[in-house]
């Protein structure tokens, strides 16, 4: 599997591409941008937009003699391992989620806070970070947003401060590991970044960005939660929170224990994938199979929960990127970036960080990452002398943190704002969110740029193994 991945990645990066005429590049880039605008505006479903854009570009490519149709399979070959990871983790997370493991853990931890506002706030931020790093954003957000709503209802707290805190901290959790977010999986796979390298680079900054987020959230919501509570208040809250029994949610303890063990082993498997000589997709699919075998009750249901929408979205997206890449447009952009920065990493990293963060706060971070991956490959390839590693990590971190910039920037914010409106009747305006998330994003992205440059200057960014 690893050999296949290596071959595919190498074949794509080493593909000689002759630049097409300027009008072809502009035409293809325009269609790509139009697709992204369609994704951003949600006029059509994002998967439909991506597949439509792909179909149009394939037809145009063949009509203009850009490539023969079988080339499309090469574009998609690269995605096979990504699809494996998405399918495997999707099944695993569904089966483990159904065991009640994460619901159990969250109630158990929340009970330990005694219901006190300051402890609850801090705990939810940290738990969100941990859950997202293991579960990815969507399942973690579904669990935690419902937890916050139930807890706030029970303890009489306003849900907005805690729910938005969860949403914003989720984006820090998303950069923690290889499997904690789709952009990480895409970038990690394309660049062949080992799982352990994520623990060395992105995890430390994930923790730093979490602290930045907590500080920003605590300041912003300084008047919205009863931070100072009397002994009587605390006793009443304790009584209320003790009314929650985590075991009452667990249908079968054996399934719970098995699910926890399988999940743990899968995470260890991700870390060991490279030394074992297998791909992340293999580990994810083995974990999913084990979950279905040992802990799954509804096999059909679990397989049905795989996010086929995302997989089809990816297919469309990768075909679009492949077509545009064939025109030489992305290579041209890379050349302009290199020229603009004069091959200086101290300019390239801020440029890449700011662009990917701002773009991700407006458009889904998946197309942003997908578009920037070949550009980074072009910038760092050949004789430019620009090291690829700092750029990859900038992309990983800033694509995820960009989601904090706007209310539509990341799925965590979308879920939180939607849940607030529907379950608590609270409307979060763009202005309010920009003051909160936008400011936090600026600090986090600026910090990320400084962090990457500092790590690089110290020689602490691990080299990505080649071949």
């Amino acid at each position, binding site marked *: 599997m690893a050999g296949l991945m290596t071959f595919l990645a190498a074949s794509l990066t080493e593909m000689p591409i002759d630049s097409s005429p300027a009008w072809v590049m502009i035409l293809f880039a325009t269609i790509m941008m139009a697709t992204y605008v369609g994704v951003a505006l949600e006029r059509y479903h994002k998967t439909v937009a991506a597949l439509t854009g792909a179909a149009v570009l394939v037809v145009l490519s063949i009509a203009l003699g850009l490539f023969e149709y079988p080339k499309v399979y090469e574009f998609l070959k690269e995605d096979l391992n990504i699809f494996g990871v998405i399918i495997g983790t999707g099944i695993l997370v569904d089966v483990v989620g159904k065991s009640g493991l994460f619901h159990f853990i969250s109630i158990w931890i929340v009970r330990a806070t005694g219901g006190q506002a300051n402890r609850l706030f801090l705990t939810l931020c940290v738990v969100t970070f941990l859950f997202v790093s293991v579960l990815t954003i969507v399942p973690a957000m579904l669990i935690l947003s419902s937890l916050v709503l*139930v807890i706030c209802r029970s303890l009489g707290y306003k849900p907005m401060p805690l729910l938005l805190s969860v949403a914003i901290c989720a984006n820090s959790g998303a950069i923690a590991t290889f499997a904690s977010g789709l952009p990480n999986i895409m970038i990690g796979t394309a660049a062949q970044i080992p799982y352990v390298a994520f623990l060395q680079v992105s995890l430390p900054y994930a923790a730093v960005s979490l602290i930045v987020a907590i500080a920003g959230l605590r300041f912003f919501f300084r008047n919205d939660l009863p931070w100072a509570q009397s002994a009587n208040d605390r006793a009443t809250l304790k009584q209320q929170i003790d009314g929650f029994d985590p075991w*009452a949610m667990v249908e079968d303890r054996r399934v719970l224990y098995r699910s926890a063990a399988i999940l743990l082993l899968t995470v260890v498997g991700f870390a060991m994938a490279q030394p074992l000589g297998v791909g992340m997709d293999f580990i994810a699919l083995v974990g999913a199979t084990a979950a279905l075998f040992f802990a799954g009750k509804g096999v059909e249901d679990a397989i049905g929960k795989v996010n086929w929408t995302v997989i089809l979205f990816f297919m469309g997206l990768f075909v679009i990127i492949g077509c545009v890449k064939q025109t030489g447009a992305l290579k041209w952009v890379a050349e302009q970036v290199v020229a603009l920065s004069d091959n200086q990493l101290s300019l390239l990293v801020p440029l890449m960080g700011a662009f990917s963060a701002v773009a991700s706060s407006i458009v889904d971070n998946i197309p942003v990452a997908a578009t920037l991956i070949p550009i980074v490959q072009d910038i760092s390839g050949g004789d430019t002398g620009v090291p690829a590693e700092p750029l990859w990590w900038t992309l990983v971190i800033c694509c995820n943190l960009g989601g904090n910039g706007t209310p539509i920037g990341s799925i965590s914010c979308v879920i939180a704002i939607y849940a607030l409106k529907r379950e608590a009747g609270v409307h979060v305006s763009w202005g309010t969110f920009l003051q909160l998330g936008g400011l936090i994003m600026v600090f986090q992205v600026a910090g990320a740029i400084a962090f990457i440059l500092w790590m690089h200057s110290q020689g602490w960014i691990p080299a990505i193994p080649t071949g």
Partner: protein
Amino acid sequence: MADSHDFDREVDDSMRLFERSHIGSAVPLTPVRASRILVVLDGSGQDDATVATAQAFRDEFNTESLFLDAREQSSEPDYAKKAAAKVSGSRGIDRPDGEAFEAILAALDCHRMDLVIVPCPFGRAFETVGEDSVGTVMDVLLARCRVPILVTRRADQVFLTARQRVSVLIGSECDVENRAAAWAFGLAGPGAEVSLNLVVENEHFENIRAILDAMRPDEPLSQAKLTEVLIQTHQTLHGAMSKTAESLSMRYHLLPQAGAIAPPNPLNDPEIQLLVMPIEVDDRFTQGFVHDRLRRSPHPVLIVPGHVPAS
């Protein structure tokens, strides 16, 4: 940017799960244990298991046992006394007149027993009729017996082992479900696994769904929805059982089984367990559910009756 479709249902599901954990101020149940039991013998091979069960009650709960040979015709007049001699704190009693079920009911009334242990099918080995019949004696006891009935079934289903996994089966609303749960905890062994199984069999589910579909075609009833309704309607019992298990250091879990298939054949369940079922004798639906489960169970079954008319 991301889309927000389909989150409603998932957030709702998750919230309901968290609400399930909010058992609030539910009061733990007081486990019920028998101090006097009537042990019914039928002269079949099942008597060994019945005597072993009586011995277990004596050892675990210091129970006083009265042994009754309920056969209408017996060639061994001292059969009950001999069996009682095997269990300390026990004695044989004379058989009241009448048919077997009349003798049992009369003995219960006369001696003020807390529980009766009865082999089923009465007078026959389990294997002879299998899951096809519980026999007349059991039919009558289900309708008239005022005390809980512990039914011994297949000989390999030893009570001492079975009490380590106790399943309380509820098939419909029932006034005595709390009492059944209290008995379940009373009989459960140390560190036992106790579950509350909320069962709506598939045929029943399909019937309900057909009715609701006709009434509200735009709101189809799913198994998931029915599961949540089952949980909501049994939240108090669930909370009480959860607290009781915690206080007794037992394991507890809630098993909603909406749309259970036909039902899962208990004869295929290799794990020895004790089934506990409440019954309202004036509720034909509950009667049918209990009768069916009893007929198909190889495991010992405790039936906790309610609404029994005065004799």
